[in-house]
């Protein structure tokens, strides 16, 4: 399956191609440099941070060491004080020691110390007596432990507080254990307080076993020489000492640091599990590989050495620091990428602009081609059209015209371009046309625009011809142009004229014999030649009335032809409406009587109208005869003339069947009569209403009708009323 290639995917593929092409090296260079810079800066940042951390750690380490040292010193001092008590008092009994230690309130002042005690130095000879004296104090089971024979013994005689764990140490000979012994010996050798190495105290009777240390301060008999080691051994009474459970002690001393650092205290110089005295975090095994960041301090104390290792704990680092580093790296990365794409963009901007230009050019060309083709097609249509098409501007200057126009008018397009349109019309019509345009611009009302009309055109050879012109208006760029479609209707006119003349000729020809027939019949029927027998008279009447019918038909045809040819002449005079109606009724009575209908004048407003009396009579005859024709027997026909506004409406109402709906639109058309299934023959030419409408409109009025099925019909015509001072009496 071939994946569809869309413009987007093509563009995308090209994008990646150019990105990774060798021409894109500046962008890659920029990216590399930027990344390297970021890396370098980050590294530096990291190192600085590291450095800072180290410094902080060292600072804390220093503080920790100082704390430890101070505490040890404090305890040293307290023990010295204890030893001083012995020296001063010579002898201190149990009760005195108890009180003394109690008064020191060590728990309050220096919590973490397991106790404070006195271990007597007991040479072998004095052992029995010593044990006895202690038993005598109330400890019947007291003996120096371990019990093996040795040259010298020591025994823990006092240990306050003498409760709990401390009871286990009562009578213990600390010389019997090597670590303790070396510290004890050291204290005599130096004559100074001595700190022991790591021991497991006897007090580890229950609970978690802690590492322990002891501090010994020798007590000498007062006054005895103590310059040399040997002398000191001679003068030795015992040691004042304190055991320390390291966890207990250090927790009290250092707890404030535990959230920030892990503190490990090692006995001596070595970092080994065996030497671990204290670890603030308990995972001593895991940590002893040494973390990246740590500081080591040595604390010499009382002839011994502790190594303190301080490493960062969770709370050591500011929350912000790693975040800052990450943000920095991210920012650096983003900037690098941006830089990369920017350089790439700049590099290929030219290429892409060019590609875009080419693409756009293609598109434009394609569009141009399309519109060219369209223009060509339109041009071909215009060129082949039979009617002339002319474009003019607002001022009536010809802008363009098609070949048909050239043919119609006989001018070439080049000659006509730039001329006024009036060169194509006879003089007075050109003037009229200008007037049309002026009116249109002034009022916006188009009489010629948008409608077709028949004007006269003038050809190059001066001949005038009739033309049918349809004008429309368009807006281009906000300017008005008019487009006229011109058709030479000379031929059409000729044919029409021929037809009309034919009708006229035929009608005239028909009239002549009719005159004779009608005349002859009229004479006979009128008795001019003598009495006529009734039967003959009947037939004569029949013939005569039909003759009259024919005459009417011909008159109608000729009227229609005159109207169509525009040759109808009206003799417009002012007449009084009542008089007009009066004579109409009289004239039509002979028609109505035989049909048994009665003409009733309801009322007539006394107005004056300007009409051709004969033609008005013709209109009234038309209305009245139609009404009579369609009235049932013994019906009435109601005539009235109402003055409404500046018009008078003359209406003729019959009581006939009304005009059927399907016929109503064709009432005033030529040769139309309602399709009747009525019994009575309707007669008539079918031209009456058409002629009536033309006549009334030519006299400045309108015609119309109202009808309802079964309720009769009212035909009306409206004519303008003349002011009562009478109008002009010129023929229109």
């Amino acid at each position: 399956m071939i994946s569809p290639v869309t413009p987007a995917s093509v563009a995308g593929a090209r994008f990646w191609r150019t990105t990774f092409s060798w021409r894109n090296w500046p962008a890659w260079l920029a990216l590399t440099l930027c990344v390297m810079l970021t890396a370098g800066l980050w590294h530096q940042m990291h190192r600085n941070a590291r450095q800072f951390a180290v410094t902080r750690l060292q600072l804390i380490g220093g503080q920790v060491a100082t704390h430890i040292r101070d505490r040890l010193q404090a305890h040293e001092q307290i023990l010295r004080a204890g030893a001083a008590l012995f020296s001063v008092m010579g002898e201190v009994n149990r009760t005195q020691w108890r009180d003394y230690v109690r008064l020191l309130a060590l728990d309050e002042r220096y919590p973490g110390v397991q106790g404070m005690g006195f271990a007597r130095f007991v040479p072998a000879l004095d052992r029995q007596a010593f044990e006895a004296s202690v038993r005598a104090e109330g400890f019947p089971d007291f003996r120096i432990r371990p019990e093996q024979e040795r040259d010298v013994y020591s025994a823990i005689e006092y240990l306050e507080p003498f409760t709990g764990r401390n009871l286990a140490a009562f009578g213990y000979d600390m010389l019997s254990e090597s670590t303790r012994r070396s510290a004890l010996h050291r204290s005599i050798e130096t004559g100074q307080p001595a700190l022991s190495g790591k021991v497991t105290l006897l007090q580890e009777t229950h609970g978690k076993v802690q590492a322990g240390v002891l501090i010994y301060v020798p007590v000498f008999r007062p006054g005895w020489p103590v310059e040399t080691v040997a002398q000191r051994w001679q003068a030795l009474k015992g040691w004042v000492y304190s055991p320390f459970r390291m966890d207990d002690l250090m927790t009290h001393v250092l707890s404030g640091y535990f959230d920030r650092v892990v503190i490990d205290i090692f006995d001596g110089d070595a970092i080994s599990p065996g030497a671990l005295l204290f670890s603030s975090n308990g995972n001593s095994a895991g940590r002893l590989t040494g973390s990246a960041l740590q500081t080591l301090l040595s604390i010499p104390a009382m002839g011994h050495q502790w190594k303190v290792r301080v490493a960062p704990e969770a709370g050591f680092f500011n929350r912000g620091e790693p975040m800052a580093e990450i943000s920095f790296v991210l920012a650096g990365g983003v900037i690098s990428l941006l830089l990369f794409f920017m350089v790439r963009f700049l590099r290929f901007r030219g290429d892409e602009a060019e590609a875009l230009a080419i693409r756009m050019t293609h598109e434009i060309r394609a569009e141009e081609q399309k519109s060219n083709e369209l223009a060509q097609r339109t041009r071909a249509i215009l060129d082949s059209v039979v009617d002339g098409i002319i474009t003019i501007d607002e001022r009536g200057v010809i802008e363009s015209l098609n070949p048909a126009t050239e043919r119609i008018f006989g001018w070439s397009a080049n000659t006509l371009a730039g001329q006024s349109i009036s060169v194509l019309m006879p003089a007075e019509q050109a003037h009229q046309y200008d007037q049309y345009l002026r009116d249109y611009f002034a009022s916006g009302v188009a009489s010629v625009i948008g409608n077709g009309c028949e004007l006269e055109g003038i050809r190059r050879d001066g001949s005038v011809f009739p033309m049918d012109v349809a004008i429309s208006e368009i807006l281009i760029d906000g300017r008005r142009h008019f487009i006229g479609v011109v058709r030479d209707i000379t031929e059409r006119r000729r044919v029409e004229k021929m037809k009309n003349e034919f009708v006229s000729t035929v009608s005239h020809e028909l009239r002549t014999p009719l005159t004779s027939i009608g005349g002859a019949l009229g004479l006979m029927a009128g008795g001019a030649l003598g009495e006529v027998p009734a039967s003959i008279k009947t037939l004569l009447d029949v013939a005569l009335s039909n003759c009259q019918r024919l005459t009417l038909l011909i008159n109608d045809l000729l009227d229609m032809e005159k109207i169509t040819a525009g040759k109808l002449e009206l003799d417009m005079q002012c007449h009084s409406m009542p008089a007009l109606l009066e004579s109409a009724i009289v004239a039509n009575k002979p028609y109505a009587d035989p049909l048994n209908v009665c003409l009733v004048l309801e009322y007539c407003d006394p107005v004056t109208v300007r009409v051709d009396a004969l033609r008005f009579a013709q209109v009234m005859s038309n209305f009245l005869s139609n009404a009579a024709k369609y009235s049932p027997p013994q019906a009435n026909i109601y005539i009235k003339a109402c003055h409404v506004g500046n018009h008078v409406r003359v209406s003729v109402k019959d009581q006939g069947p009304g005009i059927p709906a399907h016929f109503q639109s064709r009432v005033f058309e030529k040769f139309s009569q309602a399709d009747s299934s009525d019994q009575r023959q309707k007669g008539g030419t079918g031209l009456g209403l058409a002629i009536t409408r033309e006549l009334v409109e030519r006299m400045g009025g309108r015609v119309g009708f109202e009808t309802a099925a079964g309720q009769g019909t009212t035909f009306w015509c409206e004519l303008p009323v003349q002011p009562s001072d009478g109008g002009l009496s010129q023929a229109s």
Partner: protein
Amino acid sequence: MAELQKILYVEDEPDIRAVAQLALEMVGGFTLKVCESGMQALQEGEAFHPDLVLMDVMMPEMTGPMTLERMRAMPGMAQIPVVFMTAKVQPAEVAQFKALGALDVIAKPFDPMQLANQVRKVWESHGG
């Protein structure tokens, strides 16, 4: 006012001539001289001394108006009133005929029973 007695009637169509002659003589009681053409009217009309000339317009060779013109050139007939008979009775047409010198125009087709009255009316309305 003098009475209308003698009418010179000029009409080329024989049938119409026959009808009109009957209408005027029988119905109207006039004394008629009937001519078939304008030419004949010019030749024979003067001798008849008609009171009125009733003449068709559409005639071959010499139309009614042409005949009228000639008549006016003849001293013996110049003063005799002429009434045209024609189908062209539009006002302008009537005015045109009158301008030529006709007294009036009677419409064709005519009602033979009324023709005599029409002629008499025309005679009377123009003072005889």
